[in-house]
């Protein structure tokens, strides 16, 4: 009886854990999906100023091909990005950084478009209950700061530190100096 009851209790715990894991995976995928739409929105929102001049120069240079014009527009926008940060468009993956105090780990990747950080995706954010909520907060901080020089989140100091370390390693991989 004690054995069966204990097994049932453990099973309930397992069930909750499985649910929590499913919920986090769903949350990260939706949040990253959300981030994608947001980043595309922000990039489309952010590009106008850059692409306005770029498209002007593009339209000035070649008006015969609209397609190539948009192409050159985007490339020139990346070109103009290159002039500011020198980072080629693409996604750069940071190190999986282990957090010794809690036994968690954090790994992020950074997406550059037009020389600016358009998204920071969380590949893994294994931390304690409260602390894994720090990752989305740190993400928005990083995007708005456009660097890894962001402040740590209260009650998630250790998680914040490794998040920043992983972010910095991604930026280093991109050759981004902020």
């Amino acid at each position, binding site marked *: *009886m*004690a*054995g069966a*009851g*204990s*097994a*049932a*209790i*453990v*099973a*309930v*715990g*397992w069930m*909750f*854990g*499985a649910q*929590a*894991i499913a919920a*986090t995976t769903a949350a990260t995928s939706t949040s990253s999906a959300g981030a994608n739409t947001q980043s595309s929105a922000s990039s489309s929102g952010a590009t106008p100023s850059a692409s306005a001049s770029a498209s002007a120069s593009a339209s000035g240079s070649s008006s015969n091909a609209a397609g190539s014009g948009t192409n050159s527009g985007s490339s020139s926008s990346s070109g103009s990005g290159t002039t500011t940060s020198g980072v080629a468009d693409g996604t750069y993956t940071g190190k999986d950084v*282990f957090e*010794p*105090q*809690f*036994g*968690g*780990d954090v790994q992020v990747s950074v997406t550059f478009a037009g020389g600016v950080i358009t998204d920071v995706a969380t590949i893994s954010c*294994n*931390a*304690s*209950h*409260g*602390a894994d909520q720090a990752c989305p907060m740190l993400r928005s901080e990083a995007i708005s700061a456009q660097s890894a020089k962001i402040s740590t989140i209260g*009650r998630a100091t250790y998680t914040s530190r490794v998040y920043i370390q992983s972010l910095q390693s991604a930026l280093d991989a991109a050759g981004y100096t902020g």
Partner: protein
Amino acid sequence: MTLLDDRYTTPGVPQTVTTYLPAARQSTPDEITRRHKNRMGRADFLTVIVYFSVAVVLALFLADKGMTYFASPAKAITGLGIIAGLVGTDLLLVMLLLAARLPIVDRTFGHDKAIATHRKLGKPVFYLIIAHMGLLLIGYGLQSASNPIAEALTLLGSGNDMILAFVAMAAMTIVVVTSLVIVRRKLSYEFWYVVHLLSYVAVLAALPHQFSTGMLFAEGTWARPYWLALIILSLGSIVVFRFLVPIARSVRHRLVVSEVRLETPDVVTITVTGRDLHKLRARGGQFMNWRFWAPGLALKSNPFSFSAAPNGRSMRITVRDLGGQTHRLMTMRPGTPVTFEGPYGMLTEASRTTHSAVLIGSGIGITPIRALLEDPRFGAANITVILRGSTEENVYLWSEVYDLCVAKNVALRVLVGHRPRGVETWLSAEAFNRGDRLATLAPHIKDSDVFICGPTAWMDLVVKDAHRAGVPADRIHVERFEF
């Protein structure tokens, strides 16, 4: 068969059992069965709670996405380390509860069994906590590509909570090692006591890191209040039942020594009186830890069984001079104030499972047997009392037992004389050579509860004989006086 040896056939007037307790009538077979059933129910309930508490911490670990730890070998080591810490600490709290003198534990398992279980858990808990530390150092080390010692230094550098956790580990190691040495070398009780105070240090110092570094019990989780409640419950039980209740009882009942009577030159019977003693619900067969506030005695309390059934007005113990404090008791004066912890113990009428009984006592161990027999509720068609002593004088209180046996119509066997040399037996040489066994001394033993009190090694032999006679383990009731 020695049935009232001729040397002892000077029957006194049967002692009238005066009692001031309510409902002082013999238990009916139905009552005995019902009480036994209730007790078995409680025992199952408490045992199940212990199993469930282990299951709950495992469940909490899993609910906190614990299974993700087993994705890689390094993380699996970390996960196992966390599990070891959780289960180890849970059982450590169980150990505290077992030593806390919780009334329900004492009434269900008996104080001696609770302490025996407490002691049995000591080593496994220690190994689990050691494993907790070791596995986490290795696991973290593997994950951060550093060695466990460097990892330990990192952890030590991460704040006061982890420093305290290492202090706790050190304290626990000292407690366990000295406990083992004490058992082997028989070091003094006082030394053991001081060392055991360190275990409080271990438990308390380990707490902060469980709530700060231990991510399972982080703020805002369900696990946090649960764990906190467990800790408060177990530490609180110790404070309440080991300190506050005894102090309150001592203050309320104001025990004072009223009579000191030498039975033989080395055995003394001490009677104490106090206020509202019937409210203590003390039973014949139980013991208390007594502290006599006289020069040379007040520093330490000693466990002594009642040598007469507490009758609501007075309580009585009979003590043999074994040197030290017991020697000073021989010359104690009436009027000495007494404080106490208790009553404890399960060698009582309440732990009977059936209507027949065999009571076996040796030497000074006869005292609780006598008190148990005197309990007004204790009576049955089939009771046999067996007393033993190396000499006639060592069959302490025999004449009082004789009177009680006459009054209660109980068979009495007295086995006098040394045990035979080179033979493992609890019997006197005479009885042994005659071919006596428990089954011949008490033919109804198979259907009886067997109550035993005497020296530990001797009791073990009686228990063996009882098993051989077909007595199931739950009908054998012994009281062991070891700390």
